[in-house]
């Protein structure tokens, strides 16, 4: 029996294997091509509208004069406030569930509940925000109502990410700390949180990216689509946000607005990339500090 040309029961096995590999590789490159094509289309379409004035102008009913300032500012306010609400609550919940809650049926129920909340469509949160914040709490269509609604949307993401990174801290560290006579909170504060921080931050950034791109819940709470001033009072002033503005422009009949919308998308994507870059830098910093 030789090793080079064995008596094959299946003469075409090799060929079939090759073809399948080719098919899968083709699918992958198709996905990548689609991505490139999409981004290229948007950028090339909106490129001409992009300028400093565009960023520093208010929206207009004329496409050539439309700008994105209040939407940009509104979005930055929104994610700032959303971070302010969602991070402490989310991380607190994660710590409670991972380190404090007894592992009983109630915890399992809460855990399942949170996992499912992450899968609830954002527009449903919008309806909740409409009923809870806009109507019941009389926050109207303010930044506050928007931020609280978005907080609900991203809270499960923050919790799950924070839980995951807490869980990823080797249990040996936890045990070592307890064995040295540290209390629960000392262990959490001195050992677990520092070790989990990069992971938690990645989760937070991910959540905020999501909040930045969400339009549906804002539509549902009835956020304004045409605002010609910058919000100053977070519980009274109306506001608009980047995705909302893009949506409004896309829905306009004139082609000119589609170009402005494309430019808006470029701005939105740039902000998204900035946030993610920030995450990478912070992570790098923290992991360097640790060494």
């Amino acid at each position, binding site marked *: 029996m030789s090793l080079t040309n064995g008596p094959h029961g299946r003469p075409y096995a090799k060929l079939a294997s090759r073809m399948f590999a080719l098919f899968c590789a083709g699918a992958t490159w198709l996905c990548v091509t689609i991505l490139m094509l999409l981004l290229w289309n948007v950028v090339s379409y909106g490129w001409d509208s992009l300028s400093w004035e565009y960023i520093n102008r208010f929206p207009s009913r004329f496409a050539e004069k439309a700008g994105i300032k209040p939407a940009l500012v509104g979005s930055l306010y929104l994610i700032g406030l959303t971070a302010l609400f969602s991070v402490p609550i989310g991380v607190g919940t994660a710590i409670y569930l991972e380190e404090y809650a*007894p592992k009983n049926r109630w915890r399992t129920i809460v855990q399942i509940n949170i996992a499912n909340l992450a899968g609830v469509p954002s527009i449903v949160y919008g309806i909740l925000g409409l009923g809870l914040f806009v109507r019941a709490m009389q926050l109207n269509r303010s930044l506050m109502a928007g931020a609280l609604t978005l907080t609900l949307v991203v809270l499960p993401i923050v919790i799950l990410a924070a839980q995951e990174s807490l869980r990823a801290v080797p249990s*040996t*560290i936890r*045990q*070592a700390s*307890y*064995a040295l*006579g540290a209390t629960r909170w*000392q262990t959490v504060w001195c050992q677990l949180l520092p070790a989990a921080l990069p992971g938690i931050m990645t989760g937070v950034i991910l959540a905020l990216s999501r909040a930045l791109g969400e339009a549906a819940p804002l539509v549902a709470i009835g956020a304004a689509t045409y605002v010609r001033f910058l919000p100053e009072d977070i519980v009274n002033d109306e506001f608009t946000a980047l995705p909302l503005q893009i949506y409004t422009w896309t829905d306009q009949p004139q082609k000119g607005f589609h170009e402005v919308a494309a430019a808006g998308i470029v701005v939105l994507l740039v902000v998204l990339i900035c946030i993610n870059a920030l995450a990478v830098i912070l992570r790098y910093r923290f992991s360097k500090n640790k060494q």
Partner: protein
Amino acid sequence: MSETGSTNFPLKMSTALPNRAAMSSAAEMAGQSKKVVTRELDFFYGIHQALYNISLDIPEHRVTALIGPSGCGKSTFLRCLNRMNDMIDGINVRGEVLLDGINIYHRGTDVVELRKRVGMVFQKSNPFPKSIYENVAYGPRVAGVRQRSVLDEMVEKCLRQSALWDEVQNRLNDSALQLSGGQQQRLCIARALATSPEVLLMDEPASALDPKSTAAIEELIFDLKATYTIVIVTHNMQQAARVSDQTAFFYEGHLIEVGATNEIFTNPLEKQTEDYITGRFG
């Protein structure tokens, strides 16, 4: 396997070399004061019973080795002694564990205080991802020591005790993760010493180490027993024989046999003990 005619290796204590550990005979052991005593200890993970009716005396200033095949409950027993098992949900303990005559499973026991008295070193070295200094200072810090001078002194003392001072004194602020495996393990011992424990529990402290580091740790254990009461879990029978004064053999959650180390290894009373130390299973 004997029916297929396999070879047996009955272990014999070599008499050619002097055995310091063996100097403490069973007779002497009896006179020793008992630091930790367990009485009819049952332990359950949920419904799975991991320990059955363990009554064991651990003499002060001696090294007690726990041996037995994997899964027999050695670690579980060890972790009962400083209530580390409390972290696990659904556990259940019956019986008593007395530290200096006081039941640590009594309601209202300050577990944090207990763990300062009963230090622990784990199988895999687990330094915190901080500096060497901060690792050793962690215990005193969480106990409320704030003064830098006190901490400095403490860190030096413990690093000296764990025979690490000479190697690290110039890089106390380097990350502990940069140390070698053996050094990390000694750092973990130093860290445990920094809370001034009375009892030191060690769960296979050398099993992940190379021969050289293992030798260093064994020597260290020998030195430490003057000051501390030590309980060590090991898989390595030769190691148990080398470092311990008393050996306890566990099998499937039962304490099969306990006695002075040289007696257990040369003349076990139980068939299971003999099978185990001659390598019949595991």
